[in-house]
């Protein structure tokens, strides 16, 4: 879930981040800061052992918006007698500096795959006490250990999804070719000129072009990147907008016919449509992005034991299923399967049959700036 609603507050957020990153004392606008400064004693207790189901205070959760079933929060509160205080962020890049600066006050954060590897490398996450999370065993081996956390020491997968295309079948037809060519092939996509949206995200959109060309979306080859850039630049004339917030609504309201976006958001939009059967979502045959969001503890989480207990709670088979039934993203929890609604489980949008051509986006280091500049240049 790389970017969510209202990223447009970005300008204001940027200013706040600048402030927040400079002094450890400036997270005062976060609800979590209301918590009296218990950090000193507990952050040293990072190494202290937490027992299963042990709690050491309220849970301060820093999560994507609309990503956890409110009933699950209530259940956790009732079961353990602590409050759950949730703040939301709309991009990994907005969350990371706040946590990295220290004293964020959060106990559990939910970064995406590539951001996990960045935060591990920067020492922003603390190692999990696996003894306190017996339900870790419920995770599907595909997601544990995950490539971005190869030892599985820091994170437990929360949900996963893909990036692909949502389409209007009344225009494209039931037997539409499932290819990125719908966007990047000048002839094929000419039919949908002005009715396409692409994600406003360099890695996703340049990545889609790279996949269409048969390359890895984590390439660090300037030549391959240039080819992809040319494809995107050529597509700009045919697209309605670069949009990461409203693509699903634009699609189902008939403003567009093809929308590049995340599986769960798209499914949510399609479910809300007047005729859901008129729309579908697929990852094109050339392949696309698979991504996960992952529960982790900031290096200075004030209530590490509550945090471990919460992770264990989410990894419970029935709770994991409740999560997926609510937010319509794939569950990494293998034990949850029997409890997930059949219609969700059988839905190829949530659980694509062929996952072989899916690729995680990884941090390409200094090459990241080439991606973002290529995207800016492609737009013109």
């Amino acid at each position: 879930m790389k970017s969510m609603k209202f990223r447009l507050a970005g300008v204001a957020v940027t200013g706040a981040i600048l402030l927040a990153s400079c002094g450890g004392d400036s997270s005062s606008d976060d609800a979590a800061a209301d918590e009296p400064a218990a950090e000193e004693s507990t952050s040293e207790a990072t190494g202290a052992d937490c027992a299963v189901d042990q709690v050491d205070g309220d849970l301060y959760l820093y999560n994507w918006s609309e990503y956890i079933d409110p009933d699950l929060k209530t259940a956790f509160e009732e079961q353990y007698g602590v409050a759950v205080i949730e703040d939301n962020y709309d991009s990994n890049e907005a969350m990371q500096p706040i946590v990295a600066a220290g004293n964020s006050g959060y106990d559990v954060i939910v970064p995406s795959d590539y951001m996990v590897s960045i935060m591990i490398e920067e020492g922003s996450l603390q190692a999990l006490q696996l003894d306190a999370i017996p339900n870790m065993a419920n995770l599907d081996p595909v997601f544990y250990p995950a490539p971005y956390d190869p030892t599985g020491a820091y994170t437990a997968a929360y949900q996963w999804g893909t990036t692909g295309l949502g389409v209007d079948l009344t225009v494209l037809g039931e037997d539409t070719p499932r290819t990125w060519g719908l966007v990047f092939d000048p002839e094929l996509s000419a039919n949908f000129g002005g009715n396409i949206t692409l994600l406003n995200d360099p890695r996703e959109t340049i990545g889609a072009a790279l996949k269409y060309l048969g390359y890895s979306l984590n390439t660090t080859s300037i030549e391959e990147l240039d080819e992809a850039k040319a494809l995107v630049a050529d597509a700009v004339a045919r697209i309605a907008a670069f949009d990461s917030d409203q693509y699903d609504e634009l699609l189902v309201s008939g403003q567009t016919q093809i929308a590049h976006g995340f599986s769960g958001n798209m499914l949510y939009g399609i479910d809300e449509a007047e005729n859901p059967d008129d729309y579908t979502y697929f990852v094109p045959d050339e392949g696309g992005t698979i991504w996960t969001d992952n529960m982790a503890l900031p290096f200075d989480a004030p209530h590490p034991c509550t945090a471990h207990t919460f992770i264990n709670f989410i990894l419970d088979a029935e709770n994991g299923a409740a999560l997926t039934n609510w937010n319509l993203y794939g569950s990494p929890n293998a034990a949850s399967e029997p409890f997930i609604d059949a219609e969700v489980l059988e839905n190829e949008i949530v659980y694509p049959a062929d996952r072989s051509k899916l690729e995680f986006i990884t941090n390409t280091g200094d090459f990241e700036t080439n991606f973002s500049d290529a995207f800016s240049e492609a737009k013109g």
Partner: protein
Amino acid sequence: MSVGIAEAKRERSERRRGFLLALPSFAYMVLFFAVPLIIVLVYSFATRTSTGSTALSDWNLDAYRKLGEPIVRNVVVRSVILALVTTVICLVVAYPFAWFCAHQRPTIRNLLLIAVMIPFWTNFLVRNYAWRILLSNGGPISSFTEAIGLGETNILFTKTAVVIGLVYAYLPFMILPLYASIDRLDRRLIEAGRDLYGSGSQTFRRIVLPLTMPGVIAGSILVFVPSMGAYVTPELLGGGKETLLGSYIVTQFLTARNWPVGASLSFVLMAVMLVSTIVYFRSGGKNL
């Protein structure tokens, strides 16, 4: 002699009282403007690490060197053109309105001015989303033009939509200073101009315009500066299809995680704006 000293003393104590009264706003400016600005400046000399963090060491000018590259130049040129177009349209639309407004009875005048301000009662982001609905395919404006036989108009996600959105957003900033200038204009000077056989346009060019120039300048700056850095409107109404300064800076912070470049660009932009504004005021607006 002694009277002079007493007066000087009183003046000094008054000045001190003035300073004390100004202290809160002064402190506010230092805390929320000067300090963040210094932080931005410091970051602009820092280094982006391979994980995208900012290392506050190895101070260097790389971020400023980057500003000389064609990609940034193109972004700046596009933003300047957009801001100029917006400013000129605002000026052309606002001048007659401000004139009309200033020549009404006080009641009507106040009503008109309130009407100008009313949009500020609603959040800017919400108003942009409202425009999105108005301009959309099959939306109210499109339906209207279709009904009167002009055919569908698909304005949303075009440059036209961006200009419409910006003019709408910043028009009040042009109207208000213009109104203030025009209101202060001594009408007898216009009569004198006409008496001396000046044509309407001559009177306007040689008397009215120079006398209302302070309003023109102030309004232009108030419209030009925010249009330069506009972010929300180009993204929402233009579909983010053009890279402008605002979106380029946001990208540096929130996508490329290249804070030094974002900081250097922000700082240079602010400095250029500040200096040119000062120069503009000094040269054109002596009687402001």
